[in-house]
């Protein structure tokens, strides 16, 4: 960093603004990644408000927020990773892995749950590191590497659980030391009037705010956009490509661990085969929220809106009293629309505006 000039050289000529036009507010807003998702979210929200009477209450709204948060927390990490140009298909099963490591270690060795939670965190970060390291060192697409991790974790979840407990569900840990304090952190709820607010909703909003800050306002965020948008160019100007990408994989596994802790401390036991399929929900939330599949474009608020749309549609259909079998079809349509909007936006923003 020796060549960074910290003090700007004195401006010699006063700035001339005469030949410059600033873009209209309209096109500035259109260029933001989350706009498509926001519009969709508002439309869906109004739609369910009008067709589902049970949807029109603060209680329902917070149930929707809870549902969104369990997807949304991991989606924050997955969104960052996708902006950085990579995928993680192991993000769904790692939530269960995290919970299983914690519960079975503590149950089998009589450890305090706090110790198990920390060991589990270290283990998850290690898996994230391994994902990133393999992707960067081998040059094999992350889609394949993490597909491998996905299968390994899925099999190990079942195999190890069966070995340790003799069954495929983890033992009940609610009577082990440390349960209540961990439950307070990961899986508690409080009442505001008649409304139950789950702590995951608070965490989710916090994580989204933090990720938004990092992406827009920090050097790390600049690097994430750059390694996703044009890795060679980023490397050529001195962005630490390998470190940034490995960090992103570890971020995903951190959030996976976090949701795993929530599941464990809310349900006391975990089914070892669960979590499969959720990795696509995270990717869908990110894509619906305006993240570009090819990387380099997107933002955290958009991903949060994507997760909210997911929560809203999955429960809105139930609130409306419709057959939830249709939910997947609805989700597919949403995804296609989001991809089309994104394509359009990308064309708009990379088209030449000025000669």
């Amino acid at each position: 960093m020796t060549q960074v000039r910290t003090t700007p050289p004195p401006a010699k000529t006063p700035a001339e603004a005469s030949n410059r036009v600033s873009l209209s507010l309209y096109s500035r807003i259109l260029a933001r990644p989350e706009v498509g998702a926001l519009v969709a979210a508002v439309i869906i929200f109004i739609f369910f408000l009008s067709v589902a009477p049970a949807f029109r209450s603060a209680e329902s709204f917070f149930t929707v927020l809870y549902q969104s948060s369990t997807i949304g927390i991991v989606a924050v990490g997955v969104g960052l990773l996708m902006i950085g140009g990579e995928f993680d298909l192991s993000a769904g099963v790692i939530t269960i892995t995290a919970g299983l490591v914690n519960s079975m270690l503590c149950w089998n060795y009589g450890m305090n749950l706090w110790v198990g939670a920390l060991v589990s965190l270290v283990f998850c970060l290690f898996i994230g590191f391994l994902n990133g390291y393999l992707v960067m060192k081998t040059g094999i697409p992350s889609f394949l590497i993490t597909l491998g991790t996905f299968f390994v974790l899925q099999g190990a979840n079942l195999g190890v659980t069966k070995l340790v407990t003799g069954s495929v569900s983890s033992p009940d840990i609610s009577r082990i030391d440390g349960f209540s304090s961990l439950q307070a952190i990961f899986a508690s709820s409080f009442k505001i009037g008649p409304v139950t607010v789950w702590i995951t909703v608070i965490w989710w909003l916090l994580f989204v705010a933090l990720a938004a800050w990092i992406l827009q306002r920090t050097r790390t965020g600049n690097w994430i956009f750059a390694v996703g948008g044009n890795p060679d160019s980023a490397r050529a100007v001195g962005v630490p490509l390998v470190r940034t990408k490995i960090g992103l994989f570890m971020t995903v596994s951190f959030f996976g661990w976090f949701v795993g802790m929530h599941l464990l401390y809310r349900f006391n036991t975990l089914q070892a085969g669960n979590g499969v399929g959720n990795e696509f929900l995270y990717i869908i939330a990110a894509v619906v929220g305006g993240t570009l599949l090819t990387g380099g474009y997107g933002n955290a608020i958009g991903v949060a809106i994507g997760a909210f749309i997911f929560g809203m549609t999955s429960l809105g259909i139930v609130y409306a009293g419709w057959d939830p079998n249709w939910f997947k079809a609805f989700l597919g349509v949403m995804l296609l629309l989001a991809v089309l909007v994104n394509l359009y936006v990308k064309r708009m923003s990379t088209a030449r505006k000025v000669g």
Partner: protein
Amino acid sequence: MMLRMRGARLVAVAAVVALGLAACSEGGKQETTGTSGGGANAAGSSGYTIAMITHETPGDTFWDKIKAGAQQAAKDEGVTLKYSNDPDASKQAGLIQSAVDSKVSGIATTLVTPDALAGSVKAATDAKIPVVGFNSGIDQYQKLGALMYFGSDENVAGTAAGKRIGEAGAKHPLCVIQAAGSVALEARCAGVKSAVPGTENIQVNGADDGAVVSTLQAKLSQDKSIDYIVTLGAPIAIDALKAMDAAASKAKLVTFDLNAEAAQDIQDGKIEFSIDQQPYVQGYLAVSSLYLYLKNGNDIGGGRAVLTGPSFVDKTNIDKIVPFTKNNTR
């Protein structure tokens, strides 16, 4: 970013592990007596090899009990048991075929997709390998050439459950289906509906407990007239209890199948009753019947399917059953 701290982290891990091993907590693993009673015979002492093939999706506690029953029978009778499974019908057919190819003494298989499995079952009977069906396929097992059948009739079980809650005054039960497109689960709900016409079905994502809870919570607050919830698996019943809590629902809960937590909830009165199809018995009888057929030419069931359920578990008999659920045999 994070890599810089690697050294520090390693130290932290070491410290944490050391701390953990020193710490001692309650509520952990207890020394249990062997989950399976001691069998007198060494494995394979009878000389028979029996292949058991199921459509198990890995990760379902229900199948653990079928396997536990089969293993116990194999142990008791000195049979070598080869277990394999695949939820995909064509792959399950392949597994049956490979059992035929390896010339096992007998085959026990689930017949969840009779049409897809007919070919390989025929290959087995052509090769003079006895086949018994269990768990599913009650209507077709004879047509396919299986000698005996051990399982419950999903529709009968559903009807029995429906009758019982109907007598207790159910008007609008909610039947929770946790896997899309499963014939067995749909049949249970259809059985409930035949007894209580007001039954409504709901589809949930059984792979995500959080999603199950919020979906049920949403449904319960949307429709306050739901007075009974029928879950089709024990883990889903636990989720349903959480949803009822959150939605302040007054509905009553009944469930199919059992596990340790559900048994505890029956004892505590949170779950009215469970309709148990006794998977342990299904596994045990499937292996034993083949053993008896091979050794002694016996036929069990008198040409009819042997029903292992529905067996009701409620407050009246739960005390006896709780210890067995902890052993993973009920």
